[in-house]
């Protein structure tokens, strides 16, 4: 929280901010209900697909030698990446005192928590026998068997669970003053009682604010290295192996940049309809969206640079296997995925160099949507091409996702948006307290 965050919020008053944001919690309209039903249907498709997979077995997927990781792990990495923009906006930009974060960080934080919660399902789905999940947890068994802490897969479990826990705590703590504001405007009844419980009895006294601010900056300070570490650890799932195309030291920064790129794209895709449907264009302004577009452009340039460096390193290493995989990616079986990735993640975001595109809702939405597709293609390109084309030609093979995997992939989008849609109707998706804090305090003279 900072009083130096002075986003241009015009002549809004505290009451107008509350009124606008609380209006988003009112009775849902037809568009919202239709979206909710669609998400329920998609989630049900995912649920049925997962149930079928558990019942029949992992052989139902297209996974086989040599490709043992496919759509499920691709989607896992994709969703972990989506989560990164929330922490970037809520923690890193908070520490850097960036003014435009206040109006949008709550929605971004929510997308982080829900994306990581969605991502966390995929290793379980991929496990097949998800009831033996506890094998990977460090618990004192009678056989004295412990997880192998030298394995990046175990680091991954630690990183993802830590990230989910810390993000959820950070998200909840940030919500407390806003839940109190909603509580105080709610009519007496069950909802008010539940909000009173959730607000923990927050009253905004000086003592509470003092410790709240002290804790909030620490949460941000802890979340910042965590967000960098999480996708680094995910990248080491690949980079720690000897597979061509994976065993490279650029993976950690490359994955983190890609994660932020995909997360920003997803937050844009969420915010653009959100501000329209809930009539909060005067709070989430074009100024905010344009700032995000600039950040997206920067991360896209970093990602594009990383793509180029990968090819350069492969060529410069003189390693035949590296050269082979990097020749295969743009020309082989999966070339459409590779070129789709390049177009969506590197070429399309270049449009944001033009203010006309950056300041157009349609332009922002189209490019953000393309980046979402592109980032899924990128994960697929990294994971599947390397496995299908490793050292020995006789072991090469191809992979295509089967119906059950597509069903789970679709279901994950339904699940993510179901969580998000539920959230925006239950709790404020715009941080009222921080928006008010970013405005000049009301004074008798009318000046701050």
């Amino acid at each position, binding site marked *: 929280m900072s009083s130096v965050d002075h986003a241009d919020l015009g002549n809004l008053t505290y009451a107008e901010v509350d009124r606008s944001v609380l209006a988003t919690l009112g009775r849902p309209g037809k568009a919202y209900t239709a979206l909710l039903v669609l998400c329920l249907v998609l989630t049900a498709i995912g649920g049925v697909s997962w149930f079928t997979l558990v019942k029949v077995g992992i052989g139902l997927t297209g996974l086989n030698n040599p490709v043992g990781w496919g759509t499920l792990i691709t989607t896992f990495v994709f969703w972990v990446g989506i989560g990164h923009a929330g922490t970037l906006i809520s923690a890193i930009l908070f520490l850097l005192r960036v003014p435009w974060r206040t109006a949008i960080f709550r929605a971004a934080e929510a997308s982080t928590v829900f994306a990581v919660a969605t991502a966390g399902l995929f290793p379980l789905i991929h496990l097949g026998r998800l009831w033996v999940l506890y094998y990977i947890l460090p618990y004192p068994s009678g056989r004295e068997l412990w997880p192998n802490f*030298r394995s990046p897969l175990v680091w991954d479990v630690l990183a993802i669970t830590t990230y989910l826990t810390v993000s959820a705590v950070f998200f909840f703590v940030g919500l407390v003053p806003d839940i109190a504001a909603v509580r105080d405007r709610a009519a007496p009844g069950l909802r008010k009682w539940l909000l009173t419980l959730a607000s923990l009895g927050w009253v905004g006294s000086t003592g509470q604010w003092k410790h709240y601010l002290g*804790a909030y900056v620490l949460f941000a300070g802890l979340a910042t290295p965590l967000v960098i570490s999480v996708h680094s650890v995910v990248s080491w799932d690949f980079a720690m192996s000897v597979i061509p195309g994976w065993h490279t030291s650029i993976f950690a920064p490359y994955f983190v940049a890609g994660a932020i790129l995909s997360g920003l794209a997803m937050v844009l895709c969420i915010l653009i309809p959100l501000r329209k449907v809930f009539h909060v264009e005067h709070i989430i302004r074009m100024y905010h969206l344009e700032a995000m577009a600039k950040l997206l452009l920067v991360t896209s340039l970093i990602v594009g640079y990383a793509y180029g460096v990968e090819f350069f390193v492969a060529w410069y290493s003189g390693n035949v296997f590296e050269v082979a995989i990097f020749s295969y990616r743009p020309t082989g079986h999966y070339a459409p995925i590779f070129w789709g990735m390049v177009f969506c993640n590197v070429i399309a975001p270049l449009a944001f160099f033009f203010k006309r595109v950056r300041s157009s809702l349609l332009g922002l939405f189209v490019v953000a949507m393309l980046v979402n597709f592109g980032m899924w293609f990128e994960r697929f390109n990294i994971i599947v091409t390397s496995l299908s084309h490793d050292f020995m030609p006789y072991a090469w093979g191809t992979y295509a996702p089967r119906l059950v995997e597509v069903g789970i992939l679709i279901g994950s989008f339904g699940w993510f948006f179901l969580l998000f849609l539920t959230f925006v109707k239950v709790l404020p998706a715009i941080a009222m307290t921080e928006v008010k804090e970013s405005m000049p305090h009301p004074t*008798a003279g009318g000046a701050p």
Partner: protein
Amino acid sequence: MMRRTPPRGVLGVFEHTDQLLAALRATQKARMTVRDVYSPVPLEQARDFVTPGRSPVRFVTFVGAVTGLVSGLALAFMTSDVWHLVVGGKPVNSIVPFLVVGFELTILFGALATLVALLVLARLPSVAFPGPAYREQFSLDRFGVWIDCAAGDERAASDLLRQAGASDVQRVADAAPEAA
């Protein structure tokens, strides 16, 4: 922080922060005790009148983070020593991989310790909610100053709050508007 004395005194409700700060300065000058200030947003200047100094949450965070680091490293080293098996060509006690475990638990324990410290120091969840002086408008756009005073001093405290610009002055015990 609130002291455990019976609720008493008067509450001034303000619409503007400059008037609120003027009231706080006046109470200090008149040697009256400000028991608490309520606001919809954090007000650092007001905080200095009631609870000056920085929050000690950071010390608890540090202890939590160090505990996490030690626990993570201990977990990795000690469990690896149970069976001396070389896996993937890496030494049984591999320092670099174990630092990842230590790092993650540093962050996890640090964050959980921060949460516990916040809850304990800010006295949350509050079983006394809403308390004698809290008004629902304090989470919207009003600011409150609660002056702790005996029944005989209520008139002077009320006058002080009104002169500073309070839009409403109430007795804390019964929340009834104070007689002019």
